[in-house]
């Protein structure tokens, strides 16, 4: 087999050196009943050519986002990723390295993480950030638990317009803890409902902006009220590009900002792997309760600057059952892709990219609003908005797919049994004027 270097001669020589007669002699600790005689009933080995063809056949059964007018968002967005990003993350030294436990031979990963942390902090307007989480949804869930630890309170309030998957992931993590989560109704007046729920037992409020329907929220009022009651504000975002144009959570009073970084550098990947961003205030109470890895600056024996993983006394491998989280990986390679893409963009590119996204969405909103029977729900949006249709949105999306248009996410897919005529639509810099025209025409056709 091409990945296994031993010849049978090698194996024999090694068994001799060990002093056993056969490989079976090394498996004698396995209870006899569990020792398999032959092979497990699965196909046997295949050549590279065969495997590549089989997987290519599966790949070809999917409609790739680049091969259709594409408007699907709701937590994952189609953006152009420069070729440089994918080239760099495939460097052997990044791709095939492990967690930088030996910092002297891991400075590449560590310095990159330090850059990542700084970029995330700047982007979110927060003080510090960790070295990434699995994704936005788990980052959100961890933030809720962290807020409870910091405040020593047990009630979390989540706006109903937070991505339902994020709400569910948070509920799962909190399920058997002492934290209880109350979710407001996903109605237009989200923030009022959230504010109404804040009391002296509230650990945190969780608000997404732009929210799942694409609406922007000003966090300043809710922050003021929450802080008055001793509660923390967790700001959530699913579209990191929005922060190039929209006010940062850190500048609107958020104590913790979490979100999905997929838009920058990572690509769609059918939902994963993605990269969770996690930032908070520079406060000892916060940092000690942070989940996940942190890279920090230090010096070496010669006094020269270097980086290490630090503050690991929060973590499971040191603290075990007292750890802040059971997490022991970050989204390493995805955070690297994020940092490289962000470095290519810089302030200039990011703000321009954000503006292009917004303008494309504005044009799309106008084009779709002009389709008879279609009503634009949003007053505000960044690159995603919701429309109200005269018929079932799920059916419309399937009809559009038959016309070759990937036309968004029916709100009912996220809120089963609700919002059945609502369609959530995203536009990015990858959409051309032709895409928009094709979409509008197809939509008119299927309504």
């Amino acid at each position, binding site marked *: 087999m091409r990945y296994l270097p*031993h010849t049978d001669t090698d194996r024999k020589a090694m068994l001799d050196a060990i002093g056993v007669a056969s490989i079976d002699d090394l498996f004698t600790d396995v209870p006899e009943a569990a020792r398999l005689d032959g092979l497990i009933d699965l196909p046997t080995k295949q050549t590279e050519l065969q495997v590549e063809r089989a997987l290519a056949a599966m790949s070809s059964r999917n409609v*790739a986002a680049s091969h259709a007018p594409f408007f699907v968002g709701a937590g994952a967005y189609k953006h152009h990723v420069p070729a440089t990003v994918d080239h760099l993350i495939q460097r052997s030294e990044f791709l095939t*390295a492990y967690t930088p436990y030996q910092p002297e031979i891991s400075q590449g990963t560590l310095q990159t993480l330090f*850059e990542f942390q700084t970029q995330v902090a700047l982007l979110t307007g927060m003080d510090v950030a960790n070295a990434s989480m699995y994704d936005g949804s788990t980052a959100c869930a961890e933030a809720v638990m962290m807020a409870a630890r910091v405040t020593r309170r047990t009630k979390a309030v989540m706006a109903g317009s937070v991505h339902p998957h994020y709400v*569910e992931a948070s509920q799962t993590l909190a399920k058997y803890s002492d934290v209880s989560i109350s979710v407001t109704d996903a109605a237009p007046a989200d923030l009022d409902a959230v504010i109404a729920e804040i009391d002296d037992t509230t650990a945190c409020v969780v608000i997404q902006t732009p929210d799942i329907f694409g609406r922007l929220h000003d966090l300043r009022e809710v922050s003021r009220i929450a802080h008055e009651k001793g509660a923390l504000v967790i700001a959530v975002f699913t579209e990191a590009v929005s922060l190039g144009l929209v*006010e940062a959570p850190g500048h609107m009073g958020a104590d913790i900002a979490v979100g999905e970084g997929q838009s920058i550098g990572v690509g769609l990947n059918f939902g994963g792997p993605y990269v969770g961003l996690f930032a908070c205030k520079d406060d000892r109470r916060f940092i000690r309760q942070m989940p996940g890895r942190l890279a920090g*600056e230090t010096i070496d024996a010669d006094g020269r600057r270097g980086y290490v993983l630090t503050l690991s006394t929060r973590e499971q491998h040191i603290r075990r059952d007292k750890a802040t989280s059971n997490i022991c990986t970050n989204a390493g390679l995805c955070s*690297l892709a994020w940092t490289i893409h962000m470095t290519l963009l810089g302030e200039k590119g990011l703000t321009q990219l954000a503006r292009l996204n917004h303008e494309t969405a504005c044009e799309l909103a106008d084009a779709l609003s002009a389709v008879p029977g279609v009503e634009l729900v949003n007053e505000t949006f960044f690159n995603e908005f919701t429309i109200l249709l005269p018929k079932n949105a799920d059916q419309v999306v399937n009809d559009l797919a038959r016309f070759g248009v990937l036309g968004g996410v029916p709100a009912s897919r996220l809120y089963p049994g609700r919002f059945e005529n609502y369609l959530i639509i995203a536009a990015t810099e990858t959409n051309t004027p032709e895409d928009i025209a094709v979409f509008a025409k197809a939509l008119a056709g299927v309504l």
Partner: protein
Amino acid sequence: QAEPLIFERGGMDRCGVDLPEPKGLKTRLGGLERKDAIGLPGLAEPETMRHYVRLSRKNYAIDLGLYPLGSCTMKHNPRLNEKVARMPGFADVHPLQPASTVQGAYQVMGELAHWLMTLTNMPAVALSPKAGAHGEFCGMMAIRAKLDADGQTGRRRILVPESAHGTNPATAVQCGFTVDEIPADKTGRVDMEAFKAKLGEDVAGIMLTNPNTCGLFERDIREIADLIHEAGGYFYCDGANFNAIVGRVRPGDLGVDAMHINLHKTFSTPHGGGGPGSGPTVLSEALAPFAPVPYVVATEKDGWDLVEHMDEAEGTPFGRMAAFHGQMGMFTRALTYMMSHGSDGLKQVAEDAVLNANYIQARLSHVMTVAFEGTCMHEALFDDRFLKDTGVTTLDFAKAMIDEGYHPMTMYFPLVVHGAMLIEPTETESMSGLDRFIEVLDALATAAKAGDTGRFLAAPVHAPTKRLDETRAARQPVLRWTPSADAAE
């Protein structure tokens, strides 16, 4: 050579992408425009390329040499897997596209699930856990949900061997359990007497790594499984070491109720400097109904569908682990890897992994001290008795390995052994490669005993940095760059 941070070299007006000029349309942001500069420096493409290529060269990697981190299974990462993961039908599809446009993606999930269930002889698998620890969480949530469904609300104590990965106790607590440690016996395995003594009506289950973190197969595993079941608890198996037995032993045959499978270990998806991982979790008949959403099911007409809401599920899912469907990019890689090896190749993987570890243990036993007698599984565990009175610690010994061109083994874990050195070569190392590694360790051990202490204390000297001050980093945390904080240099 020191590589500056991008913040020290980039500029606000520098940019490595080209974008069309915005048209200057009126915004619809409701007055929430970002007001101040963000402060993110940019670099042109050539400078970006160099910065990260140069940084990369400060890393050690599997592609450069043996990476014998015990418990981490640092095996060769085939590039076919990378190629497949980038096929447009996998890399460029959205998780919420209509089912008709992602049948091939569902098929990958369906086929991967089939392979994992068959290899483990377990009836169900949850694909969505995003890493090993997330998989542990999945399995323990299923156990908790099952107990609650059965009204076993008094069962909240989880038994965890002291040699366990730290994630095990952390996960148990996260699921509302308390942790009760079981000691190891003198052979490095669960002390059966102690274990039996801990059984009782409040026992929810046991979390056991097998092969365990000493690199040993738990000989009494069937008995442990039977006893925990008899006691009314469940058996969570930490699957981090599945590489040692894949294709030769099926965890389902050992009485396991739940086990996560690290696709990034056993099935060679790349570690990427710390992630992303992927931790699908197989579940027994008893736990299967509590599996989280979403999951794929075969439809009648030869297609696939996704069950993504709890009320659509057949059983009573404990919830959703994360947004969307799991680490698709890892699924394609792992499936590619499994299909490449096949059932015969995977069996050979386990055999060669175990062969390599035993070869190292056998050939170094005369100069280093093997922690437990007998043959090991896929990793060889040494303790620091051979360094006694040399003034050289396990850490020093590890750093000296760096100077010899090797990544050190896992240090000081498992905790049951003093100054542990846990060496996992994996099956993708050649005999001649192992011979060179053995010679180096032999020479180092000999040097330490001969009193060449300075060499160890000063190590590493051939690495990109000298030994780094981890204490300082923790005492005076600097977690981000700020204009004023370029202090050291």
